[in-house]
């Protein structure tokens, strides 16, 4: 979703924006007839005049056709159609109708209830109203044949009114032949083609509430839930970015980052059954620039089976090699690497997927080995079922075997359930419950003391 945990750090102040946001949501959802042409709302749906579910299992997760469209750099599979559906020609560049390449995403948590363990000082049950999560504007499409682009900017209403640039890249498609190589350049999300892409989570991300800049260690962290899944998460306690801001253990990172600057090449030169991906990133959790003066690299391969009987399956594995992409408390550089596998099965109403990752920190300063665990692992498994045309039920399991500073480290295991009802294929009402499977214990860690959390959520894209 183009977010890091940093984005989600919220100091809750119910303000005008939240109330305004909730007002908009109520307004929109209470007038189901407000959009004349039924379901085709977000830009690609508008552009190609099809329902959202042509590309999505249920928005936002992609189905096999949506994946092909994405892989082909926002062109219909097997084509170089960039611009053909366009309306305005500027020389050899074609622009679509504005509405065909601009979209909005809006996400509100009208009601959140967290159950904390009572004997922790300051940790009480909390109920929050109208937590406006994010408003995102994005623009995506094709500039001309075989050239696609995407850019998104996001505002996190709960936190600041600034719009922040998320992904922004140009994609040069079908280099060397149809499906041979597609090159993305810019601010990208590397895991886009992995079995479990970080982007478009079926469980809407729920941000933690953190009361001080050093939240993960201090007593004031109040919400912890499986933001993007443990397999994607950073998993280490006590590591920092270039500016010595903590990298939160639940923040998606490395291969599974939501945005990193770099170059990525992927393709299917041998037919639909095999995909390769290879990329270079600035790494180092840097949104701009490359002050660590070194690059991170990754390779991913994916095998697909998808022919008939409403069935598809894939299996993928990657290796990500980091280079001075984090710091420890002393300010010394360390290198984080990650190895992961993922799989996904879709059969009619069932969407089942999971991923397992192992993270390693190398180049630890001398003498830290005794107090710092250099290995961490994470598992995410999710299953979703399309119960009726409008109802999706899901469950997810996340287990993080955390690493990092032994004094702070807390592993976490959560089980999640959700029900999502689609008023239209682009408007979802959701209720999600996360249950802590670990025993409660003393101390202040939300990984143990957040016992249960119910979040309601309204999201729409248009």
């Amino acid at each position, binding site marked *: 979703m183009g977010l890091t945990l940093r984005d989600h750090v919220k100091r809750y102040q119910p303000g005008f924006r939240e109330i305004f946001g909730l007002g908009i949501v109520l307004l929109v959802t209470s007038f189901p007839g407000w959009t004349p042409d039924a379901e085709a709302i977000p830009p690609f749906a508008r552009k*190609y*005049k099809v329902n959202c579910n042509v590309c999505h299992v249920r928005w936002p997760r992609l189905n*096999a056709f949506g994946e092909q469209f994405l892989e082909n750099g926002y062109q*219909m599979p097997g084509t170089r*159609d960039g611009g053909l*559906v366009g309306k305005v020609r500027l020389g050899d560049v074609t622009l679509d109708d504005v509405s065909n390449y601009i979209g909005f995403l809006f996400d509100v948590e009208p009601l959140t209830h967290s159950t904390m363990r009572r004997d922790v000082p300051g940790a009480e049950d909390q109920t929050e109203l109208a937590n406006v999560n994010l408003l995102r504007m994005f623009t995506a499409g094709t500039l001309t044949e075989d050239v696609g682009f995407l850019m998104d900017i996001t505002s996190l209403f709960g936190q600041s009114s600034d719009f922040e640039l998320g992904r922004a890249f140009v994609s040069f498609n079908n280099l060397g032949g149809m499906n041979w190589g597609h090159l993305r350049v810019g601010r990208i999300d590397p895991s886009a083609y992995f079995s479990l892409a970080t982007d478009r989570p079926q469980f809407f991300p729920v941000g933690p509430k953190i009361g001080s800049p050093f939240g993960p260690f201090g007593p004031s962290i109040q919400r912890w839930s499986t933001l993007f899944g443990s397999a994607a998460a950073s998993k280490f306690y006590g590591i920092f970015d270039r500016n010595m801001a903590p990298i939160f253990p639940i923040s998606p990172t490395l291969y599974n980052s939501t945005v990193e600057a770099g170059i990525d090449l992927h393709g299917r*030169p041998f037919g639909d059954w095999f995909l390769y991906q290879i990329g270079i990133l600035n790494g180092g959790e840097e949104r701009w620039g490359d002050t660590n003066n070194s690059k991170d690299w990754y390779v991913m391969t994916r095998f697909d089976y998808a022919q008939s009987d*409403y069935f*598809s399956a894939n299996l993928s594995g990657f290796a990500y090699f980091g280079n001075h992409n984090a710091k420890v408390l002393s300010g010394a550089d360390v290198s984080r690497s990650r190895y992961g596998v993922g799989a996904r099965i879709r059969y009619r*109403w069932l969407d089942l997927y999971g991923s397992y990752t192992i993270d390693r920190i190398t180049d630890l300063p001398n003498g830290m080995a005794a107090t710092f665990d250099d290995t961490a692992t994470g598992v995410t498994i999710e299953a979703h079922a399309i119960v009726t045309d409008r109802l999706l039920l899901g469950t997810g399991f996340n287990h993080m075997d955390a690493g990092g500073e032994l004094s702070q480290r807390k592993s976490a295991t959560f089980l999640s359930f959700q029900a999502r009802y689609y008023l239209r294929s682009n408007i979802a009402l959701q209720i999600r419950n996360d249950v802590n499977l670990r025993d409660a214990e003393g101390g202040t860690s939300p990984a143990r003391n957040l016992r249960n959390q119910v979040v309601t959520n309204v999201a729409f894209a248009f």
Partner: protein
Amino acid sequence: MKRPFRILITSLGFLWALGSSLSVYATTLSEIDVSGGALIYERSCLVCHGIDGHGDGPAAFYNSAYSASRPRDFTVGNYKYRSTPSGELPTDQDIFRVITNGIPGAMPSFGGLPESARWKVVAYLKAFSQDATGKKPETVTLPEPAIPTSSASVAQGRSVYLALDCHSCHGVDGRGRVGLTRAKELIDSRNLPMPPSDLTLAGSFKIGPSARDIVRTLFTGLDGTPMPSYANQLHGQEVDAWHLANYILSLSPSN
């Protein structure tokens, strides 16, 4: 920097080795596919229409999970958007047109394929439902000349609409709302519930939004759906089809 370079070189080497051993596979694929249609079908259509053309591709379920329309099963030969009488196969032009324009709501346009590629895939699709006789399908003759719209024609169209009982499915107001019509009982050839089109929405005409498209649909029917052909009822009063079309288009004024 040194280690990642080694890794990159190694992985490129690995990919190259894999590639050269697999290029054998790639050649066999294009050799089998004499006309070129198979490869295009596999890249662009298989994911919805399925490897054997049964309309059960890996992405076929979602848009129509528990209601119509799933991607067409080409082996049944039960095409909706034809210019031929009910029960017949479509002409090549009919198929070409669907590929080029897409089907609003259900199937995106594949106009991005070069024209020659679209013709190749037409040939490939026809092989799924080879008519044993191999005879060329005849097209229906539409009443000519077209009758331009006018308030008199629209009024005449409305009485034909009621006389032919269109409202039993589409509703008196044309919106086909479930509850006011037989909409609830309607199913398609796959037994999936199929609501009648909302005739007041310009975007809901899948075959095209012109009067000629609607007139053609009245004579051909939409095979595989509850929407029948009216060729028999209109016999002798064929021009009524134009009035009817003018009336239907008057329901979606934005058109």
